[in-house]
C-alpha cells in the first residue's frame, strides 16, 4: 500500500508533511468515519462526452465500474438499447491541489489512502478507458529481437536482431516476403539501434556487441522506396562494448552519442556524405574483415568530437562502471544510466557532469519524458522507478513485473503513459497516475509457451519494446518474433 501511495504522490516528502498537518487538525480518515455518500461533480476534457456539471450525491463505495455506469447513463440515458453505446471510462480523482490519480479501488478507500476528507464537492475527471492492446501482427525473425525503432515519417520499422542483422521493415505490407525492405549485417549481434533524419536523409545508427558503432544510410530507389542500407560511418574510439545510442532531438539529427562499458559517453557528428574531412581518418582501414572486400568500401572510421566521463572511472568524474543506457534530452543535456547504480546528467556543451542520482540497483534502461521532465528507469529487481531530476533523493516505484525489467519507454509526444517489458514475457502499459499497469499483455502466446515444455515459467524474455505512435506498440522477444499491438480501436 505504501508503494502505491508513494506512487501516486509525485513529491513524497511534501505530501508526508501535508498528512502530518492534517492529522493535527482533524482525526485521520478511516474507513469507519468516512461518509457513506459524497458529492461528486464529473468533468471531462472531451466536450462531446460532457455530462451535467451539477454535483451528484453518490455512495462512497463506488468503484470505477460503478462510476462508469453512472456516466454512461448520464450520457446515453437508461435502457437496454443504449447499452451498446456504453464505453468504459477511467476516472481521475483530485486528491490534492492539481494532483490527480487514477481510481483503482473504491472512492472510499482512495480517500482513506490519500488521507483526504471530502468536505466539499469532489471533481472527478473522466476519460475514455483505453482498450487492452491487441496483437494484430507477428513478424518472424531469425533470432532474438533485441531492439525496435520506428520512423514515423517513412513509416518504417528498424529491428535489431541477434542474427547480426538490422532489418528495415515495412510494417503495413501484407506480403510477408516483401516485408523486409533491407538488411544490414554487423560483425556481432545487434544490441541497439537508433534512427533519425538528417540533412542527408534517413539514417540509422547501430551498436552491435563490439566497441564500434555504425551509422548506416538508408538507400532509396527512384520510387522513393527503401531498397537498401549502406554503412557510411564507423564510430571508433570506445575501448569496450557500446551499449546504447541516442540522437540529439534538436540538432536535426546531426549529433549522436554512444554509451559504452568503458564508462564514457562519446559524442559524434553525423556526416553521411563524408563532407567534413576533419572528422574521419583519411586512410581506409586495411585490416577489416575479408567479407567487406566484396562490398564497396563506402564507410570511413570517424572520431568522436567529445567525450563525457573518463575510462579511469574515478569518483566525481563520471560513471565508475559501464554505462548501459543513454538519452539525449533537450537543452543539450544527456542522461545516462549505469551499472554503478547511478543516473547522471551531463552538460554536453561544457562536457561536464551536472548532477547525479544515486539509486541502489543497476539501471538497465532509461527513458525521459521531455514534457513532464521525468525519468523512468528499468531495473533487474523487477521494478520500474520514476525519478524527478530535480529531486534525486527518492523515486516512485511501479511494481508489477515478475522478473527483470528490460526496457521502459515513454509515450511519444509527451503523455502520461509508458510501456515496459521484461523477462516475464509481459508487455505492460502504464499511466503515471496509476500505481498498477493499465494493461498487461503476454508477448508469447500460450501455445508457444506450451511447446517450450514449461508452463509455469516463461522461457521467453521480451527484450525490446517501442511505443511508436499513440496507437501501436511493437515488442520483440526471445521467441524470435516481433509483435504489433494495437492500443486504440
Amino acid at each position: 500500500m505504501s508503494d502505491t501511495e508513494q506512487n501516486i504522490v509525485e513529491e513524497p516528502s511534501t505530501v508526508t508533511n501535508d498528512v502530518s498537518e492534517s492529522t493535527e487538525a482533524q482525526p485521520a480518515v478511516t474507513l469507519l468515519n468516512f461518509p457513506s455518500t459524497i458529492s461528486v461533480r464529473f468533468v471531462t476534457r472531451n466536450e462531446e462526452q460532457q455530462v451535467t456539471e451539477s454535483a451528484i450525491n453518490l455512495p462512497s463505495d463506488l468503484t470505477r465500474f460503478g462510476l462508469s455506469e453512472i456516466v454512461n447513463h448520464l450520457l446515453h440515458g437508461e435502457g437496454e438499447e443504449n447499452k451498446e453505446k456504453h464505453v468504459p471510462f477511467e476516472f481521475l480523482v483530485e486528491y490534492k491541489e492539481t494532483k490527480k490519480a487514477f481510481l483503482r479501488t473504491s472512492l472510499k478507500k482512495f480517500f482513506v489512502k490519500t488521507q483526504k476528507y471530502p468536505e466539499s464537492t469532489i471533481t472527478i475527471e473522466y476519460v475514455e478507458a483505453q482498450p487492452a492492446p491487441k496483437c494484430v501482427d507477428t513478424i518472424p525473425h531469425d533470432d532474438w529481437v533485441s531492439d525496435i525503432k520506428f520512423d514515423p515519417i517513412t513509416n518504417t520499422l528498424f529491428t535489431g536482431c541477434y542474427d547480426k542483422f538490422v532489418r528495415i521493415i515495412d510494417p503495413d505490407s501484407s506480403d510477408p516476403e516483401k516485408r523486409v525492405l533491407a538488411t544490414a549485417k554487423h560483425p556481432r549481434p545487434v544490441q541497439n539501434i537508433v534512427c533519425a533524419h538528417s540533412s542527408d536523409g534517413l539514417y540509422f545508427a547501430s551498436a552491435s556487441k563490439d566497441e564500434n558503432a555504425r551509422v548506416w544510410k538508408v538507400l532509396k530507389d527512384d520510387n522513393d522506396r527503401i531498397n537498401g542500407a549502406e554503412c557510411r560511418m564507423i564510430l571508433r574510439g570506445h575501448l569496450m562494448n557500446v551499449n546504447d545510442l541516442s540522437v540529439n532531438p534538436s540538432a536535426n539529427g546531426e549529433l549522436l552519442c554512444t554509451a559504452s562499458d568503458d564508462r564514457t559517453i562519446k559524442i559524434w557528428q553525423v556526416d553521411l556524405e563524408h563532407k567534413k574531412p576533419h572528422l574521419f581518418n583519411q586512410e581506409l582501414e586495411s585490416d577489416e574483415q575479408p567479407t567487406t572486400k566484396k562490398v564497396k568500401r563506402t564507410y570511413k572510421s570517424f572520431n568522436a568530437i567529445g567525450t563525457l566521463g573518463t575510462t579511469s572511472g574515478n569518483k566525481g568524474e563520471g560513471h565508475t562502471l559501464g554505462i548501459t543506457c543513454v538519452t539525449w534530452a533537450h537543452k543539450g543535456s544527456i542522461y545516462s544510466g549505469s551499472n554503478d547504480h547511478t543516473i547522471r546528467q551531463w552538460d554536453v556543451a561544457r562536457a561536464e557532469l551536472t548532477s547525479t542520482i544515486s539509486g541502489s540497483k543497476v539501471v538497465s534502461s532509461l527513458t525521459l519524458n521531455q514534457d513532464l521532465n521525468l525519468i523512468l528507469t528499468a531495473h533487474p529487481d523487477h521494478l520500474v522507478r520514476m525519478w524527478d531530476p530535480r529531486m534525486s533523493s527518492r523515486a516512485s516505484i511501479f511494481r508489477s513485473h515478475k522478473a527483470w525489467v528490460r526496457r521502459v519507454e515513454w509515450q511519444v509526444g509527451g503523455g502520461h503513459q509508458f510501456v515496459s517489458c521484461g523477462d516475464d514475457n509481459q508487455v505492460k502499459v502504464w499511466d503515471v497516475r496509476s500505481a498498477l499497469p493499465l494493461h498487461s499483455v503476454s508477448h508469447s502466446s500460450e501455445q508457444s509457451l506450451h511447446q517450450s515444455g514449461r508452463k509455469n515459467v516463461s522461457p521467453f524474455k521480451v527484450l525490446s519494446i517501442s511505443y511508436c505512435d499513440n496507437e501501436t506498440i511493437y515488442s520483440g522477444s526471445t521467441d524470435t518474433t516481433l509483435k504489433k499491438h494495437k492500443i486504440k480501436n
Partner: protein
Amino acid sequence: MPPKRSRTEESKDGWGEVPTTENDVIELSDVSSDEEVADTVDSDTDTNTNGYEGNDDGDDSDNEDDVYVSDDDDGDLNEFLTEEEQEDSDEEGDIGGLKVLHSFNNETEEEVKERKKRELDQEPSMFDDVDNSDDSSEDEGMINTVGNIPLEWYEEYDHIGYDVNGNRILRKKRKDALDNLIASHDDPNYLRTVYDELNDKEHILSNKDLQTIIDVQKGRFPSNYNPYRPMVEYVTIDSRFPLVGTPTPKKHFTPDKDELKHIARLARRMRKNPKVGVPQIPQRNTPECYLMWGQDGRVIGDTTNRVGLLQAPKTLLPGHGQSYNPPMEYVPEDSQRRLYDSLRKVPAYDKFIQERYRRCLDLYMAPRVQIRKKVIPDPEKLLPELPDPESLRPYPEIPSLVIEGHHHIIRSVSINPTGTHVVSGSDDHTVRLWEVDTSRCVRVWKFHADIQCVRFNPNAGLNLFAVCVGLQVYLIHCGDIGSEAVNEATRKLFPDASYDETKSILEVDEEEELEMFKKDEQENESDDESDDESEDDQDGEKDIQKEQVVSSSTKTGRKKVLLRWEFYRTDQHKEKRSQGIMACLYHLKQVTQIDWHVRGDYFVSLSPTANNDGIVIHQLSNRTSQKPFKKALRNKGQKVVSALFHPTQPHFYVATSRNIMVFNLQRQKLQKKLKGQKCRDISSMSIHPNGGHVLTGGYDRRMEWFDMEISSRPYKTMRFHRKAVRSVAFHKRYPLFATASDDGQIHVFHCQVFVDDWLKDPIIVPVKILRGHKITSHLGVLDIEFHPTQPWLISGGADQTIRLFTS
C-alpha cells in the same frame, strides 16, 4: 474363655428347641386331660419312633418364640412337671423348661453347659440340623407372616394373618368338643396331635418327637448322645510364641554415653538461655483474615506449591473387557459371534474414549508438572548484536535469471573479468559461454569427458579461460566477445607459428622420481589400498601418456614427462583454432582444479590423484611449467583439495582435507599451517581479496573462517547448511561471501574486515539465503562465483541450471 461360653449358649438354644414340641403337646393338653396325655406319651414312646424325625424339620424357631410368648404355656408345661420342678421353673422364668432340666439332673448351670458342649461335639449332625433350623427363617412350615405379635389381636377376624404374598390366611373352622370326642375315638393319632395356633394347623407328633419330649421331661440326655466325651483343649499353655507382642518398653533402652553427654549439654545450655532451640513465633500484627472460599479451615487458594506434589492418578488396569484371554462370561457366545463375520469388525471397547478423555481431563485440570518459566528479562539481549541485514545492502537477493541449456550437472561456473559473460562446464561434456544479462548461449564447445573446472583469466586485458577435461587443460579464447584490443592481446599470446617444443615439457628424472616415490611410500605405509588401486590406474594412463609423449617428442630418454604443452596452429589444427582452443596441457592424472593468479600470467593445475606431481604451476607468457613441491604434500591419506594463489603476495595456499598450508613461493618454504578446528573434510577454499582471511567449506557442513593474523586456528566455525558445503566464494569488491551447499541453498554473508584496525575482529553477518536450485540426485549447488563488479552471484547447480541472483 469367651468362645467356649458362646458355644454353650448356642447349644443351649439348640436345646431350647426341644420344648417347642413340648409346648405343642401342652397346648394339646388344654383340650385333653393331663393323664391322657401322659399316658399317650408313655405308651407311644416305644412304639412310634419313625415320625420323630419327620416332624423335626417342621419345627420352626419363630414358632417356638410364639409359643414361649404366651404366659399360659408356662403353666401348661408345669403340669407335666413335678412339684419340685414347678418351683424351679417359677424361679427361672421363661426358659423354665431348660432350667427344669438342669435342676432335674442336680447339676449346676455351668456343668450342664459343659456337658452340653461335649455332647454337641460328639453329635454334630443332629445339632447342626437344629442350628440350621434356627437360622433359616424361610422354612416350609412358616405360612403366617404376621410376626411376633399377640395372637389375640387376630381373634376377632376370619383370618389369622398373611402369607408371603400378602394374601389372607383364612382361619379354619375350629373343632368343637364333639369333634374332639369323635376324633378321640376314631383318630388313632388323636393323642399325638398338637395344634399350632399361629398357623392354624395341626401337627401329628412322631415317635421321635415324643421320645424327645419324654427325654426332656425326665431330664435325660437325648439318645445317641455321649455326655462323657474327652474334652478337646483349644489353647495349650505351653505354646512357643510369646503371648504378648508388645514392643520393648522404653525403660529397657540404655542410651549411649555420648548421647547422654550431648543431651546434658543441650539441657545445660537451655537452662542458661531458655530461648535456645525454641522456635520464635512471630507476632502477628495484621488482623487475621479468612479466605472466604476456604473449606473447613483448609485454604484452597494457595495451591501453588501443592500442585507439584499431586500424584498423577493411576490408570485403571485393563479389565476383562480389554483382555485377550477373558473369562468365559466375557467370551461372546455363538449367537453374538454370528453378528460379526470377522474379528476385525468387532467394535472397539465402547468406553475407551470416555475413560481416556476423563483421564486426560484430569491431568489437564490438575497439571502435575510444574512448569517453571525461565525468567528472561529481555529476550533481545540473548541475540548477538548484529546489524540489520537491511542496512547491509546491497547483496544478492533476487533470483533474476535462470540459464538453461546444459543437459547434465554443472560442475563449474566462471565469470569473465568485465562481468559480461559466464562460462560453465558440465557433465554433458560441453562448455558453454553465456551472456550474463540476457542468458544467451554464445558458444558451445564439446569435449570428450566431464568438465571438471572452468576458470576465466582474471586479467581484464585478456579474453581467455581454462577448461579442465580429464587429463587435459585447454586454454580457450572466444573471439565472439570482448573488444578488439583485448582479443588482439589474447591472440598475441598464442601466435600462429611454430614454437620450441622442448621448452614446454616438464620432465622429472625418473630415478629421482622413483626414490621420492619410495620415500613417500615408506612415510605413508599406513596408506590404504585405494592408493594401490590408483597406482594401477596410473600405470595404465602412464602408458597412454608415454605413447603420446613419444609421438610428439623423441627426447624423453630416461626422464619422465610430467606435463606437455601443445599449441594449436591454424595449419595443423584448423578446427580447434577456429573454435578458439589455443593450447592444451597434457597431464598424467586427472586435473580437477585450476586457479589463475590475479595478473593472469600464472595458473596452477591440481590433480589430487597424482602422488608427487599433483600441483603444477604454469606460466602463460613463458609457456613453461614448474613443479613447486618435490615431495608429495599429502600425508596420512589427506588429499590435496584446493590450491590457490594469494591475491597480492607471492604466497600459495594449498588445502588438504584437514589443513591449509601457506607457502612462500619466493623463499620456497612453508610459511604457515592452518588447522581446522572441527572441519575434517575440506571441500573448497577461498581467499579474501586482501589476502588476510581464508574461508573453507567442508563436506561435514561446516564453514570455517581463518584470520591469518590471529592464529592458525579458525576465527569462526559456522554450520548453517544441512548438507555438505560444496563451494565458498568471496566477492572481490563488496564485503560479501557466500557458501553453496548440497541442500540447494546458497547462504550469503556480509563480512566486514577492518584492514586498518588490527584490534577489531571481522564482523560476519548472515544476510540472505538464496533458494532456487533443486536437489538432483543428492547434489545441490556445485559452484558459485560472485560477479566481479556487481553484488550479484552466479551459481551452477546439479539441476542443470545456472542462476543469477541480483541485488
